[in-house]
């Protein structure tokens, strides 16, 4: 372990994020990048404790106490590397995460048996129409994402064949 890693005090990003806890997972929506992530329970436990005061060793000890099982520090590093890639840690950490923290490497080393490995996944936008009633076409572009994904309505409040969906180019809602 290099000295810079020993001194690393990871701090979770709080600004411009909306979070939602669901059974066994934590969902995070990044308002800056308009991306959503799903943290599994292990990743969520680690992320919540990243207050800029705890070292990785301390985070590992607390996770061990939480889950009542011995945990290798590399599992925490794996979570941190994914959180950093997802822009969920305050930037810049200044720490480079070597390849040995990859999920596959940890599984090969037999470190994944006691607890679920931390996983941070980007959530794909569903193709379904989620809205119940539709959105007036004129209103759709003024909405802040996430977009309703419902049908756009014409001036007579009649559903058109377009949906009010997120337009990644301009990061706005658009009838298309």
């Amino acid at each position, binding site marked *: 372990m290099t000295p810079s890693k020993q001194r690393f005090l990871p701090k979770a990003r709080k600004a411009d994020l909306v979070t939602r806890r669901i059974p066994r997972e934590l969902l995070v929506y990044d308002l800056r990048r308009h991306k959503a992530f799903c943290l599994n329970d292990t990743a969520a436990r680690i992320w919540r404790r990243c207050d800029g005061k705890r070292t990785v060793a301390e985070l590992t000890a607390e996770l061990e106490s939480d889950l009542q099982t011995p945990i290798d520090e590399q599992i925490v590093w794996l979570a941190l590397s994914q959180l950093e890639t997802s822009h969920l840690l305050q930037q810049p950490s200044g720490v480079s995460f070597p390849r040995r923290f990859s999920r596959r490497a940890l599984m090969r080393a037999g470190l994944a048996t006691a607890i679920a490995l931390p996983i941070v996944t980007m959530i794909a936008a569903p193709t379904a*129409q*989620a809205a119940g009633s*539709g959105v007036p076409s004129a209103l759709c572009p003024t909405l802040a994402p996430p977009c309703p994904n419902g049908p756009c309505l014409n001036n007579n409040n*009649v559903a058109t064949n377009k949906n009010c969906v997120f337009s990644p180019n301009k990061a706005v809602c658009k009838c298309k």
Partner: protein
Amino acid sequence: MMNNHFPARLIARVLERSWRPVPEPLSISAEEVHQVSPLLLATGTAALAWRRIQSADLPTTRPFADLEDAYHQHAIEAAFHEINTQDIFKRVHAARVEPIVFKGWGLARLYPDAGLRPYGDIDLWVRPDHLQKLRDALPAGSERAYCVDSHVSFYPQYERSFEDVLRNSHLVSLNGVQVRLPSDEDHLRFICLHFLFHGGWRPLWLCDVALMVESANSQFDWDRCLRGRHKHADWIACTIGLAHQLLGAEISGTPVEKRARTLPRWLTTAVLRQWEQGTGMSFADDLSFSFPRRLFKPAALARALREHWRNPIQASVEMNASFDSSPRSMWQIGSAVSRLPAFAEQLVRDVLKAH
């Protein structure tokens, strides 16, 4: 039994009692999930379905992952809706407006997890003389805007005035902000009518009915819920009956129990037909939708006319008909005829606009 309206029956099986805190395990094959998932995704029931399907211990195939993605998306949307609803109510309180929230968060909050019940807009009922104040209180233009659907009246068959509903309404705290909701009795009556007026096309709406009926405690005033013309009380009873027959809602001991077990056959069939189509033309108030564009394309024209032909439920409620066992075709024809003047007027406008 499973051969008639198979996809719709499968939807019903997947959603059966899915709103309960601990849903029952579901026996379903990967092939069935593959068949039903597009319909579940299209009708906003993916999250509820995923909750049950995950108990089936199936391999994580594409449709399974799509349902889970939809649940995640709805859960995040629920967080946004709550933030937006809080902000709206802070603004309307400051403007001294007293709106009542119908559907949306008012229903989603009853589910074990708000992400299970997606919704797109925030329906607010206000006193007519408060409508402009409500609009002024909400941000507009380039400022952050909300998808608020404001109403000053509902279906005549609702048979309740704003003042009456307001008197019986209650405040519920949403992260410290007081949000006004109708009484459970008024809300259940409303969502039953809403389901019928939209032709029953969304199974999610029937889950709402089932959940509200099962949530009704001993204080629930059934007389208040059913008060009004007998015919409309029967509509409400039949909608609850659909929730019972199709989704397994528990109705024992309710005053609608007897009626719920003897529904007219056309009613259940109409709902199943609508569910297997996966979409509804809920917003088509006239026949003019895209008409000029389709005028010289016979296939498109035929499709447009089919889309605008009311299903037996919509036709019956539009024509204010009883839910008896008589054939529905006369009400469907009546509904089309009653919309002809508006159609003609709109058609002339559309054709003139197109030229």
